[in-house]
C-alpha cells in the first residue's frame, strides 16, 4: 500500500521542537503539587539526554491563573511574558520550554497576537523597557516540556529499565492519556498531533510499551476552570467534569492515567479521593483509585528512578498497584520519610479510598 499521502497529511500535524539549548520556565501548579516532577524533568534532561537547559532564578509566573481568572488584563500578561523572553535573551538562549500547559497556551497566544498586530508587539517592547529597562527577542522555538520528551521518546526507550508492560502477563499496560485543554485546543497547529489527534503523550506511551485507551470523554476538561476550582462555591463544576471522565474510562479498566498539564493530575488524583469519600465510589482495583501520573514521573519510572525520589508519595491515589504491575521494586518504609531519612510521620488513611500504607 502506498502510504506517501498518509505521511504527507500526518506531516501537517507535526511541530518543530528544538533539540538542545533550552530556557526553562517553571509552573505555578507543578512546583507546588508535583515538585518531584520538575526535578525529574531536569534530571533526565541533564543526566540522561545530556542537554543544556537553563533556569534563571528571577523568572516568574506568566500570570496564567490570573489571566484566565480574569483579574489580569492581556496587556499585563503579554508584558510579563515579554520579561520572561528578555531573561532568556539576556542569557543567550532562543528556545523557551514552559513546564505548564496553560503557560504554553499563553505564550502561543501572545506570539500569535503579536504576529497579527505588530503594534501590540511594539507596545510590549515599550512597556517592558519602561517598567524594567529590559529588551527581548522572540523565541526561535517554543515547546512544552512534554514536547521535548516526545521528541526524544525513542532515545529514552533505548535506555529504559522498565516498560509500560505488565511484568506478570507480558501484556501492554492500558493507559489513559490526558493532554490538557490549553495544549492544542486554541492553537491546534502548535501541538504534536493537533487538537484532533494529539500524540504528544500517546507517542511516549507507545514508545515505552503501553497501549493507549481511546474512551468517549478522552478530550473532556478535567474541570480546573481556574476560578471554578479555586472558589469553594464553584467546585461542583470541577468535580463533575473529572467524574464524567472517570465514569467514561472505567469500563476500559485503565492501569494508569498519564497527564500533560500540571493541574490535571492534581484534579484527577484528588477528585478520585473526594468522590470515594462523598459517594463511596472508587474507580481502580479493590477499592483503590486509578493511579495518576505526570509525564515526567512516568519517564522517571521507565528509567528506573526510585518512586519516592520522583515524588509519588505526594499523590493521594496510591501508585503502588502500577509499580507492582511494572515490576518496579520499592521500599514502603521509606515512602513518607523526609530528607536524609528523617521520620516526619505519615498521612492519615482516607475513610473509603483504599491506599497502600
Amino acid at each position, binding site marked *: 500500500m502506498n502510504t506517501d499521502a498518509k505521511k504527507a497529511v500526518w506531516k501537517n500535524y507535526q511541530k518543530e521542537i528544538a533539540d538542545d539549548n533550552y530556557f526553562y520556565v517553571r509552573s505555578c501548579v507543578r*512546583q507546588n503539587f508535583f*515538585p518531584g516532577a520538575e526535578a525529574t524533568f531536569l534530571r533526565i534532561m541533564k543526566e540522561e539526554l545530556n542537554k543544556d537547559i537553563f533556569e534563571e532564578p528571577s523568572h516568574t509566573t506568566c500570570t496564567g491563573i490570573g489571566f484566565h481568572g480574569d483579574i489580569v*488584563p492581556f496587556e499585563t500578561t503579554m508584558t510579563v511574558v515579554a520579561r520572561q523572553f528578555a531573561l532568556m535573551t539576556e542569557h543567550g538562549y532562543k528556545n523557551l520550554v514552559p513546564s505548564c500547559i496553560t503557560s504554553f497556551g499563553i505564550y502561543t497566544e501572545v506570539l500569535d497576537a503579536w504576529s497579527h498586530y505588530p503594534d501590540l508587539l511594539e507596545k510590549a517592547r515599550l512597556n517592558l523597557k519602561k517598567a524594567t529597562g529590559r529588551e527581548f527577542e522572540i523565541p526561535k522555538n517554543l515547546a512544552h516540556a512534554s514536547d521535548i520528551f516526545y521528541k526524544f521518546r525513542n532515545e529514552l526507550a533505548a535506555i529504559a529499565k522498565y516498560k509500560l508492560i505488565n511484568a506478570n502477563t507480558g501484556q501492554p499496560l492500558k493507559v489513559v492519556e490526558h493532554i490538557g485543554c490549553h495544549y492544542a485546543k*486554541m492553537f491546534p497547529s502548535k501541538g504534536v498531533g493537533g487538537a484532533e489527534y494529539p500524540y504528544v503523550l500517546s507517542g511516549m506511551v507507545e514508545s515505552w510499551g503501553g497501549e493507549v485507551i481511546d474512551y468517549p470523554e478522552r478530550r473532556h476538561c478535567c474541570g480546573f476552570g481556574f476560578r471554578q476550582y479555586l472558589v469553594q*462555591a464553584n467546585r461542583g*463544576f470541577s468535580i463533575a467534569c473529572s467524574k464524567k471522565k472517570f465514569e467514561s474510562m472505567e469500563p476500559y479498566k485503565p492501569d494508569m492515567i498519564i497527564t500533560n498539564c500540571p493541574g490535571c493530575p492534581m484534579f484527577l488524583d484528588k477528585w478520585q479521593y473526594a468522590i470515594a469519600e462523598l459517594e463511596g465510589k472508587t474507580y481502580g482495583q479493590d477499592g483503590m483509585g486509578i493511579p495518576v501520573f505526570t509525564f515526567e514521573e512516568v519517564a522517571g519510572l521507565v528509567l528506573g528512578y526510585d518512586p519516592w525520589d520522583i515524588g509519588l508519595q505526594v499523590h493521594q491515589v496510591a501508585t503502588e498497584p502500577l509499580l507492582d504491575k511494572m515490576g518496579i521494586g520499592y521500599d514502603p518504609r521509606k515512602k513518607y520519610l523526609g530528607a536524609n531519612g528523617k521520620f516526619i510521620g505519615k498521612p492519615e488513611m*482516607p475513610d473509603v479510598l483504599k491506599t497502600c500504607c
Partner: protein
Amino acid sequence: MKEGLKACINCGTCTAICPAAEFYNYDPREIADIVQLQDDEKLEALMKSDTIWYCGECMSCKTRCPRGNAPGLIIMALRALSQEKGYFVESEKGRQQLYMKRTVGEWILEHGYCLYLEGVGTENHPEQGPVWDWRQKHWGDVMERLGANYKGAGPGILRKIPDEALKEIKDIFDLTGATERFEKIEKFSEKKASEMGYKSGKGLDNDYVENIFSKNNQQHNSKHE
C-alpha cells in the same frame, strides 16, 4: 487566529462541546448571539448576571467552531468590561472576583507565582485529602526530600523570587492595567459589601470574603434538576 468573534451562525456547536453548558444554566451560543446583537441593555444585563462567570476558559469551543470563533474569548472580554464598570458585584458568581484578586492576584505580587503553598490548605480545600494535609504539616521537609529550593536563594522549585524581580512585576502591573483592575475590584467590592451589610476588610478573614468564597444559592444549574 485574529479575533475571538467573526459573524456567528448560531449553530450551537460551542454549546454542544462546552463543559460549563453541561453543568450550569449556560449557553455560549446565546452569549455570542447577544454580543452580536449589539443591544446595550441586554449586554449590561449579561454583565451583571452570573452567566458570564460560568465559563471555565478551557477553550474547547475554539476547536470546534466552524467559524473559528472562541466564545471563551468573548467571555474574557465581557468579564473585563464587567469589572471595569463595576457590574460584577451584582451577581453571586461575579462577586467572587475579590477572592481571586486577594489570593492569586496578591500571590503573584508577593511570591512571583499564581499559587502559594500555604494559601491552599485543607481548611479551605478539604478535597485535597490527608496526603496534602500531611504535606502541609511538613512543607519544608517534603520539599527538601523532593529536591526543592523552598524559599531559598538561587534557582529551583519554589525558590524565593528576588525582591528586584518582584518590583519589576509590580511596575509592569502598575503600567499595564492590572493594578488598576485590582483597585476597581476592591473599590466596587467594598461598596457592595457595605450595601449587603457585611463587614469587609483586608485579607480573607472577614465576613464578606467568607460569603463570596462559599455562598452558592443552588440556582445555577436548575435546568438539570
